[in-house]
């Protein structure tokens, strides 16, 4: 796919905005065109949150879509909201640790990741988002792991810099989970 139109969605606090920012920033380091658009509003931890990321070889006109070709789904409300919108032959990555039901769509590729369990094994539930990102990257190759590492270095600075290795490990474990 030359153009990735991704919506990443979940509960506030699950780190879906970070998934999008890391992906978009990695795209920039890979010399691609890229945009990150957050849903924003009176959001709160536990509410729903999503962002739209476009990664493309060509200049991006619209940073918004209601027909994504890729979805990262971190909770059930997001599954219900976005499964109707994804294009046929699209890709849906589901965090099955939280989403305990199947999609109604049978015309798309589906990757299931037990992301919370994998993150807990790594010792930090918070990196479940990076596990899911890893699974997504393994399947799509949207951006390079090198680009992702550079993006993490840009994003996690100061006292958070110590978390870079853990996040990379989580991405690698997510990649391994896709067979």
């Amino acid at each position, binding site marked *: 796919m030359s153009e990735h139109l991704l919506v990443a969605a979940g509960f506030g606090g699950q780190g879906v905005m970070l998934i999008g*920012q890391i992906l*978009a*920033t990695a795209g*920039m380091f890979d010399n691609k*065109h*890229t*945009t*990150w*658009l*957050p849903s*924003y*509003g*009176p959001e709160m931890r536990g509410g729903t949150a999503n962002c739209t990321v476009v990664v493309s070889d060509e200049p*991006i*006109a*619209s*940073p*918004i*879509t*209601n*027909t994504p070709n890729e979805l990262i789904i971190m909770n059930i409300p997001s599954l219900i909201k976005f499964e109707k919108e994804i294009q046929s032959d699209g890709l849906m990555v589901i965090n099955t640790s939280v989403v305990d039901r199947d999609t109604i769509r049978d015309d798309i590729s589906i990757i299931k990741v037990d992301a919370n369990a994998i993150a807990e094994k790594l010792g930090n539930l918070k990196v479940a988002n990076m596990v899911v990102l890893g699974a997504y990257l393994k399947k799509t190759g949207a951006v390079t792991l090198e680009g992702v590492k550079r*993006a993490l270095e*840009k994003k996690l600075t100061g006292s958070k810099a110590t978390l870079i290795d853990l996040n990379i490990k989580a991405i690698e474990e997510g990649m391994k989970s896709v067979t």
Partner: protein
Amino acid sequence: MAERIMVKGNEAMAEAAVRAGCRLYFGYPITPQSEFTEYMARRMPEVDGVFLQSESEVAAVNMVYGAACTGHRVMTSTSSPGFSLMQEGVSYIAGAMLPAVFVNVVRGGPGLGDIQPAQSDYFQSTKGGGHGDYHLIVLAPGSIQEAVDLMETAFRLADNYRVPVMMLADGMLGQMMEPVVFPEYVKLDGINDHSSWALRGTDGREPHKVTSFDIDPVRLEEMNTETHKVYEEIRSKEIRFETHDLEDADYILVGYGTMGRILGSVVKMARKQGIKVGLFRPISLWPFPYDELKKAAKGKRFCTVVEMSTGQMVEDVRLSVEGALPVHFYGRTGGMVPTPDEVFKELVRLIG
């Protein structure tokens, strides 16, 4: 190539203003613009500038008025309800012929509205939101890079013409991120000489007077006529717009700012299906590219204007084409953003 940096629209515009030589910022936080104010709070002390968070937008615009009297590069940023509060000051600044830059990161209205993206402040921005015979130069960037590049233009135009300039953005442009290359810092020596009129102390010279007031209608008319000569010059020299795929097009889409950018995707979708559509994107909303749009529309079957409003710029489009072809309108309001798919569907419906 200079380094590309992933940055939010609000922060990118603020950094661009600093690089354009703005050292005086007065503002009051309001969503979806607040990162602009926050960025300036951190950045201005680093460049020996002034950051002042006022007690309200009314205070902020009057601080801009006062600071603009010194002839230095000064600005504020806000979002729709905040810009409404500023209108009295904007009118005074325009009346006194002072350079200043305003950024409006537009949100849903009217009233308190909501905090989602909108383009419903077009009338207010281009037709004079305050009282009296005045105009702002209004620039509408379609991407973060364009917003960055236009920021220096905004300050330069304000300086050259002594006219306040508005950067009309929207919540989407303010909140999204994309890679940006920042320009070098502007060297202000020699381009910012306002010593003939600025208020910087009267040591060794006669006092200057900066005012929007004259009790004598004969003199006030003269003052306004002088201002309008400047507006005429701006009309003849500062039209900005962009076109895509217009040459062989049967239909024209017209949109500005973020919406203009989204329409680029509609053009691609249509062309893939063999529908010949072109795009006209006004960048200067005042002065509006009336003649250029009229020329572009010649021989086309119809024109569709798309806005995040119930229809404002469409009136200027109708004035441009002078009835030469049908002008349709499609809009969403209240913070809803038309997607490429829904605009494409509307286009197909109109073609019939």
